């Protein structure tokens, strides 16, 4: 079905950056969120929407082309239609593969400019948001964030995409930490150290 191209374009113009009309950055996206009645800082559906629209070229922005393509794919051209879309943006609808892709997008989109990594503090805030809803056991999520917070290792002040993605795969594949064997593990060292952290915790707990 053909969407109203002009209407979609107008929506974009409302949120586009003043200096560059071909791009809408976080400011504009926040405006959109306000109009939709969702919180841009707390609501994961913002990211899901941007992901579904294909805002993947640069972090923290969506280009006009991406917007138009996205509107066409999602068949939206008005605020009302966007609002109607909201329930379908629950990550619970995504299968494993789709979710992996979305999860990767979360990382990529939240980067600063040309940086390839995310600040640890951002990761600690972002992970629970992305992985809510039982994708990952909540105790695993919690303890991992605790580990990140307490580790004094300087090299973990920034988290790489590989580490980010591996965490999810790790949660899927290794349910019981007792079965974890570092000597044969290909998981990033971050994960090895997390398991070590948990083992120490368990020992202290026993005392």
């Amino acid at each position, binding site marked *: 079905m053909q969407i109203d191209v002009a209407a979609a374009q107008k929506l974009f113009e409302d949120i586009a950056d003043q200096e560059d009309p071909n791009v809408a950055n976080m400011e504009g996206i926040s405006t959109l969120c306000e109009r939709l009645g969702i919180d841009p800082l707390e609501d994961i559906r913002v990211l899901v929407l941007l992901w579904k629209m294909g805002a993947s070229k640069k972090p923290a922005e969506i280009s006009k082309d991406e917007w138009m393509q996205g509107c066409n794919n999602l068949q939206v051209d008005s605020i009302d239609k966007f609002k109607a879309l909201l329930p379908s943006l629950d990550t619970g609808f995504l299968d494993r593969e789709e979710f992996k892709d979305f999860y990767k997008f979360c990382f990529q989109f939240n980067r600063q400019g040309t940086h*390839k990594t995310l600040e640890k503090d951002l990761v600690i805030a972002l992970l629970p948001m992305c992985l809510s809803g039982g994708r990952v056991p909540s105790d695993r999520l919690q303890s991992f964030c605790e580990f990140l917070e307490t580790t004094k290792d300087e090299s973990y002040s920034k988290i*790489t*995409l*590989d*580490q980010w993605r*591996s965490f999810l*795969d790790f949660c899927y*594949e290794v349910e019981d930490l007792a079965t974890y064997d*570092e*000597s*044969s*593990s*290909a*998981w*990033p*060292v971050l994960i*090895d150290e997390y398991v070590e952290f948990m083992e120490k915790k368990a020992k202290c707990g026993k005392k």
Partner: protein
Amino acid sequence: IEMADRANGNIIQLEDGWNNEIKKRAIDKLEQTLDNGFDTAFEPKEYIRIYTTCYDMCTQRSPYNWSRDLYQRHGETIEQYLQNTVLPALNDKSGQGGTILLNELKHRWTNHQIMNKWLKKFFTYLDRYYVKHHSLPTLEQAGLRHFKDVVYENVKEQATGAIISLINEERDGEIIEKSLVKSIVELYENMGLGGASLESYTNDLEQPLLDATRAYYARKREDWIAKDSTPDYLIKVEKALAEEKARVTEYLNPASEPKIRRVVEDEILQKVQMNLLEKEGSGCRVLLANDKSEDLQRMFHLFSRLDNGLQPMASIVESFITSMGNACVEKRQAKLDGGEKEKNDDPEFVKSLIDLHEKYLGVIRETFSGHHLFQKALKNSFEVVVNQDVGQYSNAELMSTFCDRVLKSGGEKLNDSEVEESLDRIVQLFSFLTDKDLFADIYRNQLAKRLLNQRSSSDDAEKLMIAKLKVQCGTQFTSKMEGMLNDLAVGNDQKSEFDARMEQHDTKLSFSVQVLTTGFWPTYKTPEVSLPANMTKCLEIFTEWHDAKHQKRKLSWVHSLGNATVKSIFGKKSYDLQVTTLQAVVLNTFNDGKTFDFNELKKILNLNDITLKPLMHSLSCGKYKVITKTPANNKINSTDSFTANAKFSSNMRKIRIPMASLDPSHNKNRVEEDRSWAIEAAIVRIMKARKTLKHQELIAEVLSQLSFFRPQPRDIKKRIEALIDRDYLERSAENSDMYNYLA
């Protein structure tokens, strides 16, 4: 039809021929002489008569051909004789003790062989045709068969028992009749089916003997192991094995040798192997500790007889050597704990490790015949010992400094062959080092110092050491070191050429330059000190000369390394001061009684604090205070002022004023960086070739490619992650355990 021709022209009837001729003349006579013990002899005439009778009886035409009957009666004769005469005689002797029975058996067996022989001779014609035609056993075989069935089968158990008793008596030290036993053994050997088989010997004598041997040595073992020390026990083992071997040679069948040997080895060695090795007070460890080479050698030879007999011993040797090595480390630790200052030089410690290695190289060569399991044990133990944590300075550094001592002039006083020996041994120790790259880094720094300060005792010795390292580690390992030596050699070659050029100018200074190729040498600080005009002129002359020769090269001056001799006059005495270039520049500044404070000097000389402070310290606070510092204390402060020490005097004419080196001994960080790079290069190389690889295989391949250090798996993983980040590799989407190479 013609009758067969005969002496008397008549046909011989069976009974007639048998009773009157064969039985009377041959068999009865034979039996009689056997019974009486006389030598059996048939005169030729008698023999021919009997033979002929037989022959005739076998060649007569049917129905008078008595071949079948004769064959039968041959057998019956023997059988009856054995049954009626021989067997009773044996049974008679059976209750009277082993030797008596055996002697009787020997006698009867000898007799039987004689009987068999003669009967065969008499009835030969049967063997030629009848036997063959009817595929029957030969006369000899038949005779043996009868002996076996009638006599042997009934007597063999007792005979075996008697033999075993005798053997056990001999084992206990008694003297026995060996020839008797040997004869009986021959009987057993002959009782095999078809004559060639050892079946009877094996089943009826050998097997019971093996069982008895096992029981005998089991008892002995229990007895000995309780009372004897390991060396004493082993001497007994050696003796027992030798005796058993001799026994077989003397009166048993050779086939029994390996079987008896294995039984004895099993009972008195295999079953108590660990007991012997670990016996308190006399086990393997104790023998090693007390250098009991003869006992160890015996132990080695005995245990090498067993399947996997040497591995337990080799393990003990390995653990022993390791503990000896650890003792050296502990000794060093004790020295440091006792307050000794920690330096990068501990020749006593390094030498103790070298001596330990030499000692056990010798032990393995002589006591353990150079056996590979023991060589491996030595290698394993040294790989542990040499890589122990020994304090602030690594083993790599201590070893390198040891080399420095050997190679520098004024170090160890050694002649050429001692130098070669020392270098050889240190390289052997080096081969066990994990952090070889660290050693290389430190060694290069120390080499540079020796070369640049002309402290090298012998150019040949330097080359020799590098050659040895090259053999150990390959060309890449030593290429920089060789480059350094080469720079010096080239410099020497070109020296006279440049000297000629210098003479063309009148600088009033004698000047020479050593050109170093960047990359071969350690990196040095290059302070851009302000030189006096005469020095600058020298530099210009050289630069001109050099650039004409090498257009593509760029020179940068390393004034922190140069040396100078400064002719100085204090009062009326003149001195030759051996100083560094920087010190010379400073001294020059103080000509004509000038005074400067620290900050002024910084400006004049264009040097920073880090360089100027140690420089001024060496000239004003050391042993030879050629510069006077105000205030006079031991620390350089930016408020100090300096002037030449007019009152300086010394008994010596030539004075060397040392200065602390401005460059660190080696750069730990650089070694770490080089390692990171080497790991990444290995990963990329491997993944490029294999395209896709499992994690554990990648780790294993990387470790096998890195010969000069051994990274932890976590460190390798970190490099893998770094390469994933830079898009050289990716994790496989299908298998989280695998990596793909990204072209």
